[in-house]
């Protein structure tokens, strides 16, 4: 009798563990993370208050010193702006050469990063941004970051390109290559690259625009490793993202102009 009871208990514990393991494999979505934004606002508030108060109490001498420093910075920046203008012109010419069309059909706006998941690669983000819709594209100054997953009033969560559920159609400009970039947690895997036209380590993949979700011409990933698999048609290509959004305070959101559906509170 005792033995049967113990055996039942063991079965129950086993079933519980198997059930929990099955549940752990389920993808639950980002709504829970989004509900945390009021707490994040509260935690950020003292930092913002401190910065505001600090501005009020800066001494005169310090202000003068800051003025001189800023004046020098402004002069330096004027030189940088000149350089940027010449680089922009050069970039325009290069774009023409590469026949990359300018990104049109999208409305661009800035979004403040409010929170992020704690692992070093920050695989999930919370943005403070109004008037966006699901699947809007998030871009940093360097390259593609991800897409908007869930939205609420003024806040949204972002699925970054590290997410395995996100596949980005990519290409290398000037080639016939059409591949898919998939998230691997802390790296990217580029699928469907035929062995004979496999790119080299260090080459950069750009969005191809296929599928219509991502605008074409945004830098996505730089190749870190190319391995031929014996007996396989496609090479195994690993890459890392071009964008470093782990420390960016601001990101850009690209909303498609023909399908802007903004969130409205009832």
């Amino acid at each position: 009798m005792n033995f049967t009871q113990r055996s039942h208990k063991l079965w129950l514990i086993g079933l519980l563990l198997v059930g929990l393991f099955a549940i752990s494999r389920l993808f639950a979505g980002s709504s829970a993370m989004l509900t945390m934004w009021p707490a994040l606002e509260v935690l950020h508030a003292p930092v913002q208050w401190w910065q505001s108060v600090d501005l009020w109490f800066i001494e005169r001498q310090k202000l003068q010193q800051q003025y001189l420093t800023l004046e020098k910075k402004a002069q330096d920046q004027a030189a940088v702006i000149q350089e940027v203008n010449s680089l922009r012109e050069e970039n325009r010419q290069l774009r023409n050469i590469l026949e990359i069309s300018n990104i049109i059909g999208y409305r661009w706006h800035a979004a403040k990063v409010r929170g992020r998941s704690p692992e070093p690669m920050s695989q999930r983000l919370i943005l403070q941004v109004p008037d966006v819709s699901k699947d809007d594209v998030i871009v940093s100054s360097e390259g593609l970051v991800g897409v908007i997953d869930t939205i609420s009033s003024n806040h949204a969560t972002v699925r970054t390109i590290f997410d395995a559920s996100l596949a980005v159609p990519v290409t290398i400009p000037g080639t016939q290559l059409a591949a898919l970039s998939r998230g691997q947690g802390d790296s990217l895997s580029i699928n469907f690259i035929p062995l004979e036209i496999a790119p080299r380590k260090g080459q950069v993949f750009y969005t191809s625009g296929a599928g219509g979700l991502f605008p074409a011409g945004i830098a996505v990933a730089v190749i870190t490793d190319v391995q031929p698999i014996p007996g396989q048609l496609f090479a195994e290509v690993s890459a890392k993202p071009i964008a470093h959004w782990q420390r960016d305070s601001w990101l850009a959101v690209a909303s498609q102009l023909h399908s802007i559906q903004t969130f409205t509170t009832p």
Partner: protein
Amino acid sequence: MIIVTVIPLLALLGISLNMAFSTAMSQPDWALALLLASLLAHRNNWLWVLPCALIHDLILYWSFGTIALMMAIIPLAMIYLDHHLGAGLPQRIVLMLAAILTLPALGWDMQAALLTLCLCVPVWHLLTRQYARQAA
């Protein structure tokens, strides 16, 4: 009763801290440290620790049970080990280390795991003392 209310609230605050200042400084997994300490101090706490661990996973990992799975195994292992070896500290320390070592596997850096350990141990000690006082 106070522990049941305070620890989940502190854990929720910890989750928010993790998200708000994740890049500004290296932080422990506050919620994991508190929940693990509660579980090690009193294994019957699994009743509220497990739902809290599920919420932790839901918010930080968008999945239902990453840390929660480990949290579910710990009380079962405690019952088994206490039955076979007698109630003791070494097996609990091993379980604590096993739970904290899941952090590097989830992408956290080693420093964060060590900080979690440093937070878990004193909280565990405090809670154990609290339970002992209640029992006396």
